[in-house]
């Protein structure tokens, strides 16, 4: 078949579709898809409702004119579709178009096409196109969905679509309806297949560079330029370094306020702070500190009051002392609760899509927003993430040394730590490279200290490191990481404290890391010549890549099983097993006295080496047993006769007689088959050896 023939065949009008149910199902799928997009603000609800009305009217019109569509409707549909496409290309060709200004016109385009197309849907094939287009619309909506609520729309759309598909079969088969069992099987198989594919496929990644979303949210502006704000849970409220107003605050981490007080860790709660879509997990760093004061960390270089003025995306300066080494990693941050106005990012940020015309960027790489970051704020960062291997770090001796002033600061200690130095030296006595020393210290901390947040605050004036390392060695991440940093500094290794968040829990459906308030964390950055600042953490591990959906599911299942208490499970299993045994015994138990007699006869015969043959009636078997029961015995024959008379003749003996017969069957023994002097088949009379026939 030539291409022209194929095109001609594809354009032939189909058979008019009469099924009203099929049209309803398709209409439902389209309406759900439009509503899903409206819920994500890709189109306004006014537009959505208008489109729904149009689609409904179009569906009714198509059904009414299915047998003979008016000639002009094709022209109207074509003109409408072309106009929508022209409008779409005009919208996306705007130089300021970001991803939202692509997605939103694309949504509007699909909605417009669906609305126009609904007026010319005469055949089943056209309805299938409608279902496919609704799937596309759902996908466009899903591209911007960042929480599980979108699942409600997905479920509703899937129900409508699968209903439509089954109605399609009903229509195609001349009215045949799938049975309930078949429907359950088909839907179950579809779901299983989808789940299997979902678990097997790797997690999605952002591999294309486009203009990313940047939205201000409802944080408001901050009065004083360059000041930190929002750590108390109110986006625009200026922070108060190291003195939490309340111990239970969303995002109220003590380190997001210009200094880090290591004497106590507030009860941060478990509220969702932000969601992060990233190509790989990482520490989301907010701020670094280089000056240790015995109980608090501060930054020697204040955040400048002169902003960096650019339009989004911002090209960020390389932080002082850092070396851009590694690979690019894109992260989009969706702020869920008001948090500090720090722009979190992975390692060394190089480019930033941010909803503002200015930013405050410190020399150490800390980025401060002029806007309060309230819920709804969105920004995207492109970072350079280190790919240095341990072998590279062991031989690190690059041409770019740490600037002299900065080196002094990164080695700074408020007072000598002789015990700490001695401890660090003893731990790293056998190590020759900086990397090995860091690893040895991390290992020592991991084996000799214990993580706990339930410790009392340190007294005023107490040195955190001395208290932690030479006290009970129980502390939280700020104390542990500070101890590591001080041990490294005492050995002359440049180190500083970094605060931010651990990656959080990964949701494979939304492809987002969910960062909660208690994911706030502190860790250590060590400077390596040629590689810049490298993250080291003695308390938390960051995986190397986004876990696959399958791995996430396995981990979740494992965690859930791990939380199940074993004793109740064992008790339930034992009772279930006993119940199964009881049910099985009750099913296997003879139902009538006759069956019991027959069962007893078979048992007696089996014990005597004379099992019942499959073709043998009870009477025949009883006669054979009587031969071995005793001379001229007819016990089994008599019992079998009574049983057969009851079973086939309806002559039931009295209960007492029934019990007597069962008892008699239980007592009657069959002589066992002789063990020697004869060869006999199963159930056969012994045959003397000498009488075995020879060929």
């Amino acid at each position: 078949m030539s291409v022209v023939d194929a095109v001609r065949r594809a354009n032939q009008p189909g058979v008019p579709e009469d099924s009203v149910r099929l049209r309803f199902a398709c209409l439902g799928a389209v309406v759900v898809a439009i509503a899903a997009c409206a819920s994500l603000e890709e189109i306004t609800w006014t537009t959505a409702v208008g489109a729904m009305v149009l689609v409904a009217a179009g569906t009714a019109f198509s059904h009414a004119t299915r047998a003979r569509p008016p000639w002009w409707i094709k022209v109207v549909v074509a003109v409408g579709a072309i106009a929508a496409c022209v409008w779409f290309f005009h919208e996306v060709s705007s130089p300021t178009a970001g991803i939202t200004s692509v997605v939103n016109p694309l949504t509007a385009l699909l909605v417009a096409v669906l609305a126009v197309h609904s007026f010319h849907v005469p055949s089943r094939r056209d309805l299938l196109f409608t279902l496919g287009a609704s799937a596309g619309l759902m996908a466009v909506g899903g591209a911007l969905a960042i929480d599980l609520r979108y699942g409600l729309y997905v479920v509703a759309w899937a129900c409508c679509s699968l209903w439509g598909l089954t109605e399609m079969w009903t229509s195609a088969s001349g009215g045949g309806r799938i049975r309930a069992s078949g429907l359950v099987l088909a839907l179950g198989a579809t779901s299983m297949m989808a789940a299997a594919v979902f678990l097997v496929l790797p997690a999605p990644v952002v591999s294309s560079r486009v203009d990313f979303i940047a939205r201000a949210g409802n944080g408001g502006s901050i009065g004083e330029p360059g000041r930190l704000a929002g750590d108390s849970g109110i986006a625009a409220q200026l922070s108060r370094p190291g003195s939490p107003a309340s111990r239970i605050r969303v995002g109220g981490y003590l380190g997001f306020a210009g200094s880090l007080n290591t004497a106590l860790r507030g009860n941060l709660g478990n509220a969702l702070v932000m969601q992060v879509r990233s190509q790989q997990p990482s520490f989301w760093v907010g701020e670094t500190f280089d000056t240790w004061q015995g109980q608090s960390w501060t930054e020697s270089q204040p955040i400048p009051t002169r902003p960096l003025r650019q339009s989004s995306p911002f090209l960020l300066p390389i932080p002082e002392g850092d070396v851009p080494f590694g690979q690019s990693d894109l992260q989009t941050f969706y702020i869920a609760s008001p948090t500090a106005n720090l722009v979190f990012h992975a390692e060394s940020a190089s480019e930033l899509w941010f909803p503002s015309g200015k930013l405050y960027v410190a020399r150490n790489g800390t980025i401060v927003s002029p806007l309060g970051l309230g819920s709804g704020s969105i920004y995207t960062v492109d970072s350079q993430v280190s790919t240095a291997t341990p072998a590279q770090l062991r031989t690190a001796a690059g041409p770019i040394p740490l600037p002299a002033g900065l080196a002094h600061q990164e080695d700074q200690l408020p007072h000598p730590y002789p015990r700490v130095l001695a401890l660090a030296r003893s731990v790293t006595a056998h190590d020759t490279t900086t990397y090995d020393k860091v690893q040895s210290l991390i290992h020592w901390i991991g084996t000799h200290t214990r993580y706990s947040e339930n410790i009392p605050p340190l007294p005023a004036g107490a040195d955190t490191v001395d208290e932690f390392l030479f006290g009970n060695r129980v502390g939280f991440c700020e104390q542990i990481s500070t101890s590591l940093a001080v041990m490294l500094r005492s050995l002359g290794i440049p180190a500083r404290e970094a605060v931010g968040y651990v990656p959080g829990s990964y949701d494979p459906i939304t492809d987002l890391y969910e960062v909660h308030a208690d994911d706030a964390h502190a860790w250590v950055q060590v400077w390596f010549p040629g590689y810049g600042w490298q993250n080291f953490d003695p308390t938390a591990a960051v995986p190397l890549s986004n876990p696959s959906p399958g791995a996430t599911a396995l981990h979740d299942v494992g965690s859930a099983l791990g939380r199940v208490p074993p004793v109740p499970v064992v008790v339930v299993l034992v009772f279930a097993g006993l119940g199964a045994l009881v049910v099985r015994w009750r099913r296997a138990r003879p139902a009538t006295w006759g069956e019991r007699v027959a069962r007893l006869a078979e048992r007696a015969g089996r014990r005597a080496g004379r099992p019942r043959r499959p073709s043998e009636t009870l009477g025949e078997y009883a006669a054979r047993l009587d031969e071995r029961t005793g001379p001229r015995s007819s016990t089994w024959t008599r019992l079998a006769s009574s049983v057969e008379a009851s079973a086939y003749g309806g002559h039931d003996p009295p209960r007492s007689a029934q019990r007597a017969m069962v008892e008699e069957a239980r007592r009657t023994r069959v002589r066992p088959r002789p063990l020697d002097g004869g060869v006999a088949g199963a159930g056969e009379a012994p045959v003397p050896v000498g009488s075995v026939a020879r060929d």
Partner: protein
Amino acid sequence: MVAGVVIIGLWWLVAHNAGSGWVQVLGDLVFGALLIGLVGPFVVVSRARIDIRSAPGDGTAGSPVSVGVVSRGRLRIRPVEPPGPEVFVGPRRRGSPDDAVVTLVPERRGVHRAVILDIASAAPFALQWWTRQVRLALPSDLHVSPRCGRAQPVPVRPDEGTGDILDRPRADEGLPRGARPYVPGDPRRLVHWRATAHAGVLMVREVERPAAEPVTVTVELPADPEAAERVAEGALGSVVGLLQGGGSVLLGTREPSGTVLEPVADRRSAGRRLARAVAGP
């Protein structure tokens, strides 16, 4: 199917590279539906069981023959040999009757011991039709007679010199009614000598319903099936014409094993004979 695979591949590429889990979830759902829509009919058709419940023993080429079939699942059936129109069989819904009628329209005469059917299904989503050919034995042979062609004149066997017209209905069969004067052409064996002696003129016996002298129609089918069909149609037309005229017919066919000669009493038996006939040597 190819389109489905292409769509899913593109979808996954977009979903994977767009960094959105929901797009991937939706793609997985579409993939699941497509896969079940593509594979489901194969399973249904592979497991389908269809039985013939009733079938007639006779039919005519070009005329529909109804065969009763029963199927547990909903299937589309297209008779292949003998051919016939497409029909859906199987219960429409749970509890509804599962029997249906498949119409066969044989193109030519012949004897069918089985029918070949294309059974197809697109369950559960009507995205793809899968077809399988099945051969079902008929409960009894289906004799497809040729179409009834135009009656052809039966040539009269030449006179053997006795003056008898052999094709004239014989008068020695039936109930005796009396005697009548001889008319030329009456067989000699019907001459009633006693009455002739009595009347002085040649008299012949007369019977109440003179039975027809069986007419022997011998057919030699050519090797070409189409030509043989035409010949068979003509033969049937002639036989039917003769039978309608009240005569009895012996239908013979020249076959490789020799001439097969059988009396045919009606159109049905003539049709069956011609259905079984094969081309001559």
